[in-house]
């Protein structure tokens, strides 16, 4: 069964005060995750919230993506003792969470991951966590400097794919319920919500698209697919890339992992999986030294092709959701967005 069962969108509303009361209630009933500003570093990240007053509403997006709540940076697959498989016990157990305040780009990023983990073999480490989560997204009203969801068709407001979407309207919010899970949540907390208000999402998207379009995704797709990109671009990116992997760790759709067996200092042994990255050359290098990725240029090109061609072919949605995190973090000054624009022009 798919993680998200979509329904005909149902409209409601919520007053700002009631939203705070709802969040306060949630913080005592489930694990509530929300955007919290760290005063030391001035950045905003998703953290467990005990008091609704901790939640930050004035932010563009979080520094890290919310994928870590479903695909943790390091995750116990199972524990064992000795060499016997009879000693294997299941790893981390999923718990009920409500993820509040995620942006449209990250809702779509999670949708990419849902499709990826559902297809072929079902990955229940991920899917169990998703099944026990409700996503409440806060739509953006406009693009920020480094992000480009209008170009990847993943925001700033969504037409579907969310559990619950809040769209700012003056002091209050228009509420849209878009999934079975969202509907169950809405029914449970119905008292906090007000009557339906009309929102014209299509018009909002048109307006955002008029001012905010940074590239034509299909043109980028065609140029990559037809290999109509100047090789110099790949060499340039490869020359700048320091293989730190940060862009891939911050990316809401990157999902590569490695598996390690290890013993805890005082306790059981465990098999864990942890984030890996295609900008680490060890990802493809085999015992004996053979590496099917022969150069850093091939390495970087594969990432652009994966997100902007192959995931579009496979999932009919862009593997890049335009959050722009990778543009801000690169130590080698590689700008993904600028490079996509170059690809659109043929490199």
């Amino acid at each position: 069964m798919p993680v998200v069962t979509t329904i005909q969108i149902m409209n409601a509303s919520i007053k700002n005060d009631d939203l705070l009361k709802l969040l306060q209630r949630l913080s005592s009933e489930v694990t509530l995750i929300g955007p919290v500003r760290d005063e030391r570093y001035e950045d905003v990240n998703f953290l467990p919230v005990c008091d609704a007053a901790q939640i930050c509403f004035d932010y563009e997006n979080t520094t890290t993506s919310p994928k870590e709540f479903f695909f943790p940076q390091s995750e116990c697959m199972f524990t064992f003792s000795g060499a016997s498989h009879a000693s294997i016990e299941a790893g981390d157990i999923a718990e009920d969470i409500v993820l509040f305040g995620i942006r449209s780009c990250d809702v779509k990023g999670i949708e990419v991951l849902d499709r990826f983990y559902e297809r072929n073999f079902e990955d229940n480490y991920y899917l169990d966590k998703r099944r026990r989560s409700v996503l409440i997204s806060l739509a953006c009203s406009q693009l920020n400097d480094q992000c480009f969801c209008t170009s990847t068709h993943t925001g700033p407001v969504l037409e579907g794919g969310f559990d619950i979407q809040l769209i700012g309207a003056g002091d209050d919010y228009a509420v849209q319920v878009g999934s079975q899970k969202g509907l169950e949540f809405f029914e449970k907390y119905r008292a906090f919500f007000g009557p339906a208000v009309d929102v014209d999402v299509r018009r909002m998207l048109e307006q955002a698209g008029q001012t905010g379009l940074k590239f034509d995704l299909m043109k980028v797709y065609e140029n990559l697919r037809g290999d109509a990109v100047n090789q110099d671009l790949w060499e340039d990116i490869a020359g700048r890339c320091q293989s730190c992997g940060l862009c891939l760790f911050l990316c809401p759709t990157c999902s590569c992992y490695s598996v390690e067996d290890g013993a805890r200092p005082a306790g059981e042994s465990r098999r864990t999986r942890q984030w890996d990255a295609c900008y680490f050359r060890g990802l493809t290098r085999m015992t004996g030294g053979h590496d099917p990725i022969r150069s850093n240029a091939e390495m970087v090109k594969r990432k652009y092709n994966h997100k902007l061609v192959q995931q579009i072919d496979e999932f009919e949605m862009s593997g890049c959701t335009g959050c722009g995190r990778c543009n801000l973090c690169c130590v080698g000054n590689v700008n993904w967005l600028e490079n996509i624009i170059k690809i659109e022009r043929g490199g």
Partner: protein
Amino acid sequence: MFNNKLYIPRAAIVQDTKDLTYDTRLYTLKFNSHSEGDAEHNYMPGHFVQVSILGAGEAPISVCSSPTQQGYFQLCVRKAGRVTGALASLKSGDEVGIRGPYGNFFPVEQLRGQPLLFVAGGIGLAPLRSVIKYVIDNRNDYGPVVILYGARTKQDIIFADELNEWLARQNFKVFTTIDTVQPGWSGHVGVVTTLFDKVRGLSDYKALVCGPPIMIHFAIKELLGSGWAAQDIITTLERHMKCGVGKCGHCYIGGKYVCTDGPVFTYEQIDALKVPV
């Protein structure tokens, strides 16, 4: 399926080990316990399993026995890294973990009635041995068989007894070569592609190729140059893999996951990926 819990290995017991060379060993395995429909022979030639040694990790290894032989399955493993090193210290009665079988397999149904050419380099003979044994056990369903096998030295030749046994079979031709001249070797010398004189004019044979990447590269080049069509050349790719089920991303190349879309590909398919073997 051997098991249906995606990441949890199922216990198998080492029944027998046999040294094939100084660094390569044949392991005969049997599951610790069974439930309905999960017997050892539920796989096809070309499938691979994830072999797990708790504490060391997992490695993808192709099954080298044939499902026509029941009650056990075999893996041929060269000691090369951490997991295969740990495997090498196991004795009969010890336990390993198995996940799988995974991937696709050699198209043994479509190959019925066809003459077959096997081109193997080094330990690449292991997955092809599964097909060869399958063909022997269904001998009337397949045409003549030619096997070209190249090893680095005579000490590196695996399944030497079986190569001799196959040589004696009707409608089987086996040619073995080693890379360089060596005392005590009176057979052919040269890389496996130097055996292609033996197969001139056999381009109606379906070619199954497996070996190190450089060998696959040159064998395919030679086959194409000798009149084989790209769709009649079938190979199996080896990749760094962690999960075997299309999730970890290590074997991802050209839009395909070698573990789930492969590991068996025709050269026509590989060529379309625009990536090196």
